[in-house]
């Protein structure tokens, strides 16, 4: 589920851009030092493979068919760090070339699929991959990966004030579970087929060298969640949620930064203020990425 532009409210997309774009940048800068140069073409080709794989239909009965989404498969094949980078490239190409997913919403889609989706897809495999429940681990990973991505996307839409009555939510939750089960079945059967072809391609899970990555992911998800609550002051879905949870009062008290209410004072029209704040947000994100990159490369050089 790729969220297009125009669906998320400014606080939501800005908060998610601010969290996930630097997180991916940090990961890329880390990986650059660790990754074997020979693997770079492989990573690109694997991304193209996931695209092409969507052309092969899996029959599900009743005349319908589904296809591989691929987040968990990439995580099992390449490891979580590399899989997140490949997913980033896939999402970038989908947003740019296929208009599937927005540009301002890229941070949200990265969070849902490249960060949370990959981590959810990898962890069960990581824990169960060496036991006799290996296949169950792969299945659970693919199932969770899709479910986590889809429910995050739904949450973000709800927080942006896209109204969804209870029954609609129920139906979409049901559809998510069905497609997650299908993704699990496809991933397990593709992994077994690949293992029959060439056993060494799918190695056992390596010990997580980068616990930092897991921490980063968990932290990013938490930050993203907190980001929603603190950033949005508009009376939309977010507000009512915050009121229901009872933290609205505290949030209002805490947020008093220059971008509070996503408005900049000193500009006349309220709409203009919101736009200027949005632009400042984008600039801020860009500068943060730049600074983070500089800092990391400098530390590596030293």
């Amino acid at each position, binding site marked *: 589920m790729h969220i297009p532009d125009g669906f998320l409210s400014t606080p939501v997309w800005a908060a998610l851009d601010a969290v996930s774009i630097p997180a991916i940048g940090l990961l890329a800068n880390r990986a650059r030092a660790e990754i074997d140069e020979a693997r770079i073409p492989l990573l690109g080709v694997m991304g193209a493979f996931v695209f092409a794989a969507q052309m092969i239909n899996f*029959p599900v009965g009743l005349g319908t068919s589904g296809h591989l989404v691929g987040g968990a498969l990439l995580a099992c094949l390449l490891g979580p760090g590399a899989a997140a980078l490949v997913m980033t490239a896939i999402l970038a190409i989908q947003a740019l070339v296929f208009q599937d997913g927005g540009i301002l919403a890229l941070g949200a889609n990265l969070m849902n699929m490249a960060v949370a989706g990959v981590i959810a897809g990898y962890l069960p495999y990581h824990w169960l991959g060496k036991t006799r429940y290996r296949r169950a681990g792969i299945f659970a990973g693919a199932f969770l990966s899709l479910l986590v991505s889809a429910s995050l996307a739904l949450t973000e839409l709800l927080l942006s004030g896209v109204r969804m009555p209870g029954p609609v939510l129920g139906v979409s939750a049901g559809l998510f579970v069905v497609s997650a089960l299908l993704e699990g079945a496809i991933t397990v059967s*593709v992994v077994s087929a690949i293992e029959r072809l060439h056993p060494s391609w799918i190695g056992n899970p390596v010990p997580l060298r980068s616990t930092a990555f897991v921490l980063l992911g968990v932290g990013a998800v938490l930050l993203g969640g907190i980001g929603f609550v603190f950033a949005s002051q508009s009376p939309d879905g977010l507000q009512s949620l915050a009121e229901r949870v009872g933290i609205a009062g505290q949030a209002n008290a805490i947020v008093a930064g220059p971008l509070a209410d996503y408005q900049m004072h000193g500009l006349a029209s309220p709409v203009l203020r919101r736009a200027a704040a949005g632009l400042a947000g984008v600039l801020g994100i860009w500068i943060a990425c730049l600074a983070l990159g500089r800092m990391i490369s400098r530390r590596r050089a030293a």
Partner: protein
Amino acid sequence: MHHVVLERWSRRASGLHARDARVKLAATLVVLLLIGTTVPSHPLAFAAEFVLLMAALLVSRLPIAGALMRAGAVLPFSAIFALVSWLAGDPAKAAALVIRGYMSALAVLLLVSTTPLPDLLRALSWFHVPRLIILITQFLYRYLFVLSEQAQHMRLAAASRAGGRRAGSGLASRFRAAAGALSVLFARSYARADGIHRAMIARGFSGEFPASALNPVRLMDFLFLGLTISAAVLIRTAA
């Protein structure tokens, strides 16, 4: 196929094609921000934004109907949520979702169909997007054409062997056959990646694609960016 058409469109020539990729990227972000922050209660602002996009489309000399149709790829997704919003008693929000989604897609379509992707990636790397991500995206885009063609060939071959239509073949066996096809596609992709790397080493790959230097930003590019920003500010203040 969609990406082949876009690739061809991006190699044409027009006033919009000639603009610097960095400037077009910045202008697209401005337009996306403008569209994304337009509130449902301002239908005139939406109209003005659409006029702005149409003007850019005319300057780009792309097939107008074709471009408008291709941007419609976002509509099924928007329509579902718009319908739900509408049923939930918020018709203004529903309309805004459809209009904002469509116009944002059109803006991005205008960017990629007037800028060849390598130029766009070079512009992104000028904006300090990490090199590794740029490299992976470059490889992905190159082999996207090759691998999707290969997948189509495999699908055609399977169909001509009557795969999946055989009487008596159960769902489970057809499912396994599809998994087998995917694993073969995977094996071919893997071998291809290996071959690519050897060929690159043989040609002296140093870890960097030879990138032609970005041309300096010209006066026309600044004028274009200035024009876009002032149009955006004008629409925002007037509406």
